[in-house]
């Protein structure tokens, strides 16, 4: 979905950041905005990518061109990109987590290797675009209906067999199970966490992420964390 703001200059969003997205409603239902990753910018339109899973996304699906929405952002920190100058960016994305790494892969201008996983073929989006912007795209599906049968992390592990992990820098976004497995690959890098948020600006402390230094806020201290920083249960 794309949105624009005719009255103001659209803010410049960076890979890793997110927006709090809400619909106008007097019934206060849904009450809170929902976080969506910055996906990409096309001209004067900022785009987010979503999957219909609940009340808010069902409403979003019913929106028509010209409808007014409430958007707060960009919020949160950015994927550090300096290391990718001398190392190959190895990107692992799961499900709609692809939205978070998409602008990052674009930024790497064809140097990133992408492992992209979903439950089935149906969940794999933007294959053509992704192939065009990455050096190598490996699709993995749990049911084997497309590409590698297994998880994206499994596919990445196969690829890394016989290669030196120090030649790569990891970027990953997806469900917590995937982030945990990706962190265990032995590649240093960055992972973006997805947590339920109420405010998105750091005051509600709802989106707590357990780290080696205690709880941190996914919205303000993240969503991007260094590999090894987060403690997965």
């Amino acid at each position, binding site marked *: 979905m794309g949105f624009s703001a005719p009255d103001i200059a659209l803010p410049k969003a960076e890979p890793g950041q997110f927006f709090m997205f*809400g619909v106008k409603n007097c*019934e*206060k*239902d*849904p*009450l*809170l*905005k929902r976080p969506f990753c910055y996906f990409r910018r096309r001209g004067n339109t900022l785009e987010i990518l979503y999957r219909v899973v609940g009340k808010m996304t069902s409403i979003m699906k019913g929106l028509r061109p010209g409808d007014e929405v*409430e958007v*707060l952002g960009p919020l949160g920190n950015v994927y550090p990109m300096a290391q990718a100058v001398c190392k190959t960016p190895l990107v692992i994305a799961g499900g709609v987590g692809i939205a978070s790494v998409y602008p990052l892969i674009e930024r790497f201008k064809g140097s990133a290797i992408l492992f992209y996983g979903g439950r089935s073929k149906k969940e794999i989006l933007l294959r053509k675009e992704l192939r065009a912007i990455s050096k190598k795209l490996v699709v993995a599906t749990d049911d084997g209906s497309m590409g590698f049968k297994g998880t994206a992390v499994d596919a990445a592990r196969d690829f890394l067999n016989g290669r030196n992990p120090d030649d790569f820098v990891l970027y990953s976004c997806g469900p917590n199970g995937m982030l945990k497995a990706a962190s265990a690959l032995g590649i240093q890098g960055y992972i973006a966490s997805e*947590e*339920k*948020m*109420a*405010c998105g*600006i*750091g*005051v*509600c*402390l*709802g*989106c*707590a*992420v*357990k780290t080696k230094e*205690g*709880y941190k806020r996914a919205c*303000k201290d993240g969503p991007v964390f260094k590999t090894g920083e987060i403690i997965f249960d």
Partner: protein
Amino acid sequence: MPARENNNNKRLEVKLGRLKLKNPVMTASGTAGYGAELAEFFDLSKLGAIVLKGISLTPWQGNPTPRITETRCGMINSIGLQNVGLDAFLREKLPFVRQWDVPVIANILGTSAAEYTRLASALEEAGVDGIELNVSCPNVKEGGIAFGLDLKSFASLVRAVRARVKKPVLIVKLSPGAPGIEEFSRAAEGEGADAISLINTIPAMAIDVNTRRPLIKNRIGGLSGPAIKPIAVRMVYQASKAVKIPVIGMGGITTGEDAVEFMLAGATAVAVGTATFMDPMAVLKVVQGIGAWMERHGIKKASSITGAMLT
């Protein structure tokens, strides 16, 4: 900011004991952090007062996640009073928020009367304008709720803190679960509180029927937002009937009209909480909304709205 500025005149002014507020609207504790995040969105001096996240003597880690879930017109949270502790608060947080011309109210919580009094003394020394006793958080067993539900220990806690605190106004935040809100309100007044505030969140629960798991890791959390507003208005009404000290009303306020409703019920001031999560500018919009309502109704002084419900 929209054109109307209400801060420069006195029509919105209200008083909490000795403490003068530019307008009746403050942040609700736990929804504004220690001020830094909201300061990125607006000038904090436009607030009636800023009530900061509850602090304890030592840092508290907070509860496991998920800590929040949205329910119909409301949300349940179980943050667990995660906070930096007194020392870090005094060193790092308080100096920042003091930069603005806004009364600073610290919210304190402890596991014993001795902890509350130590906190209160340290904060008085640090020069806060008000101290709010949190005896009503439902999310930690030791977070004062024990004091909030038992009249005798409640009264002795207020007495103990009052004996220590001279300069800052002393506000006691009541639990909606208190058996007899009038009795607790009168006890707070009788022991020397300058004001009472209510309501804190209401213990609540939600379950995902597909996974059959509770939507909050701690199972039970506190419900807030528009869903609880009618209960809060009723309790503010009952409490303000029972005492002469000012009542700070809160629970689901998202607009100026909501705030006026609480004031008509008897509140002298109001606090905005969950609405800040919906929109970081919500508190200011409530200030503007009260001003607009007064204009529409030809009301000259916000203080005259308090208890002005017609029957």
